[in-house]
């Protein structure tokens, strides 16, 4: 039986999905905080949110890069 492959697939799925979701959620959260009008907040909040979205996109692209044989992955 291919238990090892099963575990590999489960692990890869978990890591990939959690990475994407956590980064995107942080982005959403930071955008929300940055959008609050009442509070006194540091100026780096919004850029940081964009960094999170960017990292999330980069993670997805990296995943695709690994998978598509054309790129030698």
């Amino acid at each position, binding site marked *: 039986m291919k238990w090892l492959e099963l575990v590999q*697939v489960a692990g890869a799925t978990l890591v990939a999905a959690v990475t994407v979701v*956590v980064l*995107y*959620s942080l982005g959403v*959260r930071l955008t929300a905080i940055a959008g609050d009008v009442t509070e006194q907040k540091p100026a780096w909040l919004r850029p940081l949110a964009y960094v999170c979205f960017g990292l999330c996109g980069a993670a997805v692209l990296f995943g695709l890069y690994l998978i598509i044989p054309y790129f030698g992955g």
Partner: protein
Amino acid sequence: MVALVIALALFFDFTNGFHDTANAMATPIATGAIKPKTAVALAAVLNLVGAFLSTEVAKTVSGGIIKEGSDGVQITPDIIFAGLMGAILWNMITWLKGLPSSSSHALFGGLIGAAIAGIGIHSINFESLMQKVILPAIFAPIIAGGVAYLCTRLAYALTSRHDPESGTKLTQKRGGFRTGQIFTSSLVALAHGTNDAQKTMGIITLVLIAAGTQEPGTGPQFWVIASCAFAIAIGTYSGGWRIIRTMGSGLTEVKPAQGFAAESSTASAILASSHLGFALSTTQVASGSVIGSGMGRRGTTVRWGTAGRIALGWLFTLPAAGIVGALTALLVMTGVVGVIIAAAAGTAAVLYMFLYSKKSHVGHHNAVAVEEAGQAVRFRKKKKKAMSASTAKDEPKGEL
């Protein structure tokens, strides 16, 4: 015969496409992230792109389940014809019932049935069947569901906002997830293209090799790749609205954050599995994810009745497609007349189901009642406080 099989294979590809639109696009349609028409168009384009991206899967389609090759039995176009017939009919039946069932299982079932009837039970490699079909079928929904559950919890935990002093819930502002859904669902569609169009390519290549027009051991030819890609894209665009309805609002109410988590898990699972060689069914992964994300958000109910109906459908997929495949194989074995009868009966059955479906039309206009799905969220009555807080949570929807 070869031409007939290729035509049938392309038609199977078409049913596969429109059967599986739901996997990628049911949740964004349900949350209103993308308009239904746009969603299926997007899915179609991405399926097309995905089909061209990788042909790894195509090379191992029947994957040794039927012992083909020099030491095994000779698989003939007749057997493949019969198998495809079984797969197509089962796909049509489940579509009519709105059940998301695995197209790959239908294909395997049909081929297995045809091989047993046409060649004999010894032609089936049961160990390989267990390893490549049965076990993944059990684990696909579990893996995807578990990951989706975790992701949904994480997404909600990370974005839940409380006032530091009073502890009351602030506006949650989770609208960003809706935009994110566009990307994640696109990824699922792409993954589907890299995965499912391959199966038909593999079948056609198998036929060409069996007919002696292609060297054994070579990959699919370009025209095969192109026609399969287009068949699945057209199928996707036609949209299996019945199944979209089941997946989008039949299993559980889907919110943007949930949909995002579910789609991320689905895409990761499909891509990981097709890359690492432990093939999982797209449909089963997607259904598992939707259920998992439904369990992950407090206050949502998963309709286990529908889930059970789907699971039952999965159980029947392999044997049902197998029986049709076997019957067709027996018919085909009798000669040319048998082939004609089988082809005519198959066409008639598909036509009948298509006409029958017209009676209760489910189209893009009524597949998912978006407003209803967005607002009629069930919360348990005893949680009065949670209820008011949750309505606050829903507010950002209006802002978008």
